[in-house]
């Protein structure tokens, strides 16, 4: 496409770099901004630039944060003896949106996968063990994906915590709520049967 303006062309090509934004959408967004009052557009630009400049990573849990310590880590209603280990920030957002979890988090920044060049030293593992020791954490929930890399990471972490007086738990895996058994794949069904629960636990889960 030929643009009558180099300025517009530059703006469009910046929008296009964003995930999920194609050429047409980029152009639509730019033309929309062009129609706005200058100070409105300025607000948009400022918000993005401040976000990029000022967002930091929490020194305790490595979640995104406005301050040195994030809102979750500094929350007084949170259970500070309970830590949920997750792969990335998206997982924090997913678990937070359940509104069922009131402990703290620890964002590893990935899972162990030598095939992709990710060894333990690239992840926030030392800081986790230090945190457990220093803050007297009582339980660590391993909320990692049920994959080979997730399992490797859980096992590795549990080895690293062996000497610490902390309880380690994992998410249960099985048939999704609302799923029909007939249409659940054999593997999931087999795993759900082998990791079956006493009925009292089932009631609690619901």
């Amino acid at each position, binding site marked *: 496409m030929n643009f009558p303006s180099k300025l517009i062309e530059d703006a469009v090509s910046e929008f296009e770099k964003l995930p999920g934004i194609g050429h047409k959408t980029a152009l639509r967004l730019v033309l929309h901004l062009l129609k706005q009052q200058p100070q409105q557009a300025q607000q948009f630009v400022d918000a993005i630039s401040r976000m990029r400049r000022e967002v930091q990573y929490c020194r305790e849990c490595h979640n995104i944060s406005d301050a040195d310590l994030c809102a979750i880590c500094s929350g007084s209603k949170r259970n500070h003896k309970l830590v949920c280990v997750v792969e990335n920030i998206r997982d924090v957002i997913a678990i937070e949106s359940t509104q069922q979890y009131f402990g703290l988090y620890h964002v590893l920044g990935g899972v162990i*996968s*030598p*095939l992709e*060049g990710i*060894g*333990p030293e690239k992840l926030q593992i030392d800081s986790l063990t230090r945190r457990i020791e220093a803050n007297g954490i009582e339980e660590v929930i391993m909320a990692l994906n049920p994959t080979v890399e997730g399992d*490797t990471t859980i096992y590795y972490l549990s*080895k690293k915590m062996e000497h610490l007086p902390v309880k380690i738990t994992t998410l249960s895996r099985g048939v999704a709520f609302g799923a029909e058994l007939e249409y659940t794949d054999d*593997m999931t069904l*087999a795993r759900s049967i082998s990791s079956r629960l006493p009925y009292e636990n089932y009631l609690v889960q619901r």
Partner: protein
Amino acid sequence: MHLESIHINSFRNYAKSDFSFADGISIITGPNGSGKTNLLDAVYYLCVGKSYFNGQDGNNVKHAETHFFIKGCFADLGRTDTVTVAYRLHDVKLITRNEVKYEKIAAHTGRYPVVVIDPDDTLLVVEGSEERRRLIDNILSQADTAYLEALISYNKFLQQRNSYLKQRYSQTTDHVLMDTFDAQLHRYGHQLHDYRLNLIQAIEPDFNSYYELLSGGRERTTIAYQSDLAQADLLQLLKGSRDKDMEYQRTTLGIHRDDYIISLNGKLLKKAGSQGQKKTAIVALKLALYQFVRRNKQMMPLLLLDDIFDKLDPDRLKNLLRCIDGDAFGQIMITDTEPGRMLQALETSRKKLHYIYLT
């Protein structure tokens, strides 16, 4: 369980074709290059979700087309299941059963078990251990999904461990990480080992009697399972070989090195067997594996026989057809270039016959 009908679209030499099958024996005849093997492969796709004869999905798209689509109806105990396999070049493959899409293709494996006997089978005897492992893995995966799941996990952990061994030169070895991989390989390795050992023990009697039935002779056939894990615990083995593994930058011990050794009267089939003995032994092995899957799944697998006339001498062929004609086998599909030969051979069959002529 049997396949009632198939619809094939843009698959290999097929533009758009429909076939129906008998629950007995379907005899597929036609000259060379008419698409007999391709038809069997389309059937295999419906059963297992991948190609038996031609490897990669991309190879199976009809030339100058961008996708293939196969649909089949399986009848089982009065109900009909519809299975579809759709593949678009450079895209993901989609498999559905009764209009529900599988999240993982592996979850389809074993629902409609199938065993194939084809001319390339002799490779099983002459080639390295990989061919034999692939056959046994295929059978066990169909017989039990838990096996396939464990095998996929083992292979991924093995890949990760090997990848770590290759990169390690840039850093000091993290022995906790090595312990982690070892523990996982140990866990899945012994599971797989037990499955394989059990299979080999379970098939031995059938293997023997099928060989006898086919050859009319009295040679004693044995199949032995050879594994690093036979003598020792994999955790100990891996610990013991860690230095060596670091030097070689790969995992030198484990069930990925397993082999199955076939002997005839105590002599290695690979070395001492004649062409005829090798072919007969492999057919007998496949029939024994068929019975293994049948017992485990409590259902009759499909049996696909490709070009067996070129493979066995007339006597052995007659014996084979008599073998599979009985109640121990379910739906069968056989290919041949000459319709007359087949008609004659199956004249006295007790099963329902159905002819498919390709041109």
